């Protein structure tokens, strides 16, 4: 048996095992979802929906496990989806995006404005656009406890950490960092730990707990697991996963300051030519004042050595821009090929699937080679 077949067989057995381990507690029907804030996937193709208004994460077995090759580039993506929903492009808004790691199919959370309805849309490797109906699916939901203070209004991100799910949320009326940890297996009655994370904000040199995380990413090195969180003002911070226990205040290490005027959107790790990197895209709301490229959406590649750093942290953390506002290190590199990318996710070992936005707001979905 050649190595390709061996790998395929191993992957198949892994997926079957994962499917069976999860299948027992899924129920069939229509999940009650109030808002789709973010979407993400477990490695075996289980879709995770962050529903802040209902204070829950809904897991959906998509049954979508047929790997496919990406040959499509879908221009006017928004217009094409809107047409299928029976409205004009301006009548819908893209909320979030994720790629099923098993099939490679793109999943988009879309809001249809006139009916205030939300829709899950898929695009396959040939560019075929379909609706993923939630009317009759295998699902289960995990409730997020309110904890002290107010309930969350919106989930900002989800990250599957191989043994647990991490969820970050924000509240409407208070400035708070609410971070939930749910140990696997994820079930309706799963114990959910609510923690607060202490973060050293490089920019203003103070420890503080209150800033909410906007993007979460799992990270592993030397057998130890970490959460890497990105904030709006805009450090990357690393937290040891083992520290997330009930009522704990988890202290993180700031490892990189991306610079002010940016809002991180997505990030993931990958390897290329024997080196490890993180790819992160952000929205620059200071684009008019000081652009980093032709679009307010810009992407940077970060050497994972920056994430591994344990000495130059907090006050000494690396800054992407030096005091003159110029790039301060080769370890954090702007990627021109990704200018305009408003949403992205890892497609395979060598590619990202991205949605780029032009200056008129038109969207294009395409695969790009990882830099």
């Amino acid at each position: 048996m050649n190595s390709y077949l061996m790998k395929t067989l191993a992957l198949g057995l892994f997926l079957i095992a994962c499917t069976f381990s999860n299948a027992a507690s899924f129920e069939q029907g229509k999940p009650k979802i109030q808002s789709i804030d973010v979407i993400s996937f477990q490695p075996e193709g289980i879709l995770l929906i962050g529903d802040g208004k209902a204070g829950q994460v809904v897991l959906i077995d998509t049954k979508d496990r047929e790997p496919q090759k990406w040959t499509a580039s879908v221009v006017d993506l928004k217009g094409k989806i809107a047409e299928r929903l029976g409205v004009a492009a301006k009548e819908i808004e893209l909320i979030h995006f994720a790629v099923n790691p098993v099939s490679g199919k793109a999943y988009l959370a879309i809001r249809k404005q006139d009916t205030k309805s939300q829709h899950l849309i898929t695009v396959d490797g040939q560019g075929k656009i379909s609706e993923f109906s939630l009317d009759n699916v295998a699902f289960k939901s995990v409730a997020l406890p309110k904890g002290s203070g107010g309930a969350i209004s919106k989930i900002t991100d989800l990250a599957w950490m191989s043994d647990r799910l991490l969820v970050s949320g924000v509240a409407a009326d208070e400035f708070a960092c609410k971070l939930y940890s749910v140990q696997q297996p994820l079930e309706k009655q799963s114990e959910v730990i609510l923690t607060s994370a202490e973060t050293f904000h490089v920019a203003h040199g103070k420890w503080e707990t209150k800033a909410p995380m906007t993007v979460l990413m799992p990270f592993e090195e030397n057998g130890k697991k970490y959460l890497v969180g990105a904030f709006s003002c805009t450090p990357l911070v690393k937290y040891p996963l083992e520290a997330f226990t009930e009522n704990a205040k988890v202290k993180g290490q700031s490892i990189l300051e991306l610079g002010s005027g940016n809002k991180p959107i997505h990030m993931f790790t990958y390897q290329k030519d024997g080196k490890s990197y993180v790819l992160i895209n952000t929205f620059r709301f200071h684009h008019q004042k000081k652009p980093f490229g032709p679009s307010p959406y810009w992407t940077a590649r970060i050497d994972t050595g920056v994430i591994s750093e344990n000495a130059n942290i907090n006050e000494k953390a690396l800054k992407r821009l030096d005091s003159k506002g110029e790039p301060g290190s080769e370890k954090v590199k702007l990627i021109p090929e990704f200018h305009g990318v408003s949403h992205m996710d890892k497609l395979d070992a060598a590619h990202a699937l991205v949605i780029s936005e032009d200056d008129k707001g038109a969207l294009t979905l395409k695969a790009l080679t990882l830099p």
Partner: protein
Amino acid sequence: MNMIITMMAALLIAVPPLFQPLDNSPGVEVRLPLDASSPLKKKGGPVSNDDGESVFVVGLFNDETGKIGAPLFGKYLVRDGALVFISSQPFSLGKTYKAIRTDTKDKEVSQFKVPALKAQDAVRVVKVYPTTDRMPANLLKFTIVFSGPMRQSKTIFDAIELVGPDGKSVDDPWRRTELWNDNDTRLTLWFHPGRVKLGVNLREQLGPPLEPGKTYTLKIPSELLDASGNKLAQGFEKKIIAGAEVRTRLDVNQWKITPPIKQSKAALAINFPYVIDPYLFAREVIVVGPTGKTIVGKASMGLEEKVWQFVPDEAWQLGEYFIRIGSEVADLAGNTISRPFEVNLETLEPLAGVQKLKFLVK
């Protein structure tokens, strides 16, 4: 074309004989009786979209281009000898849809138009918190209350302006996270905290959004869209006179309680020396009676959010009551009873947590 399109009666303009209303239909159905020779006729129940679309498709008609859009999302099934298409959601008001046969040479077309909603009262801005004109320069947020549901959109952060004393818009003042209540009638609009916190490079580079001693205008344009896609009845402007920044923990001992008298339903009142966040206060504060039970009643925040009143459902009784104040009660700058908004956790004083304010009913 022998095709029947059915939908909620209230939304239908019938074009006889092809379109007929169907009472109590949850969505839209397009129905085509199948010929006896059709292979689909032998089937019952669900039909694949490929098979269904090989007979007819339904799409949005673009009045400007005269073209019919790609097939709508939905499902096909065979019922009572007819091929039925069920749209995945109700059709949109004011739009024209067309059904086209794809299995005939002539590609016959049927169309129907969903009437636009009758003109309703346009949504307006009811209130903006804080209601006072005078507020600390490190104000954290506005809460905008609308008379009806609004349309969520990230474009609000560019549409709502803060205009400075020089008549120019303040650059990028908002934290770009949409926070609406459940029915989209209340928007919590935060300043970007990086512009408010001391020493943050965003503030260092752009300056704070509000400076003490200066006057600004919050401008909510009429171009904001309500849930139906209509503009507001009119724009809304609010004057802001920025005062000194406040960066200290709230001291509840500065609050002045006016206790009610026994056997009355008079209001319990608290006067604050500063403006209180009304939504956090409503969530975090309860009144507890002499027996330890929570007192049921009606609470309201009064003039400029500096007075709180509580009227019980049942008369006050003789004894010692207390007001339980949750740790998140805050002023306009995010300072709570447990900590100031900005903290250095390495030198932070111990948190005060929940506090109780006693009062006697005599």
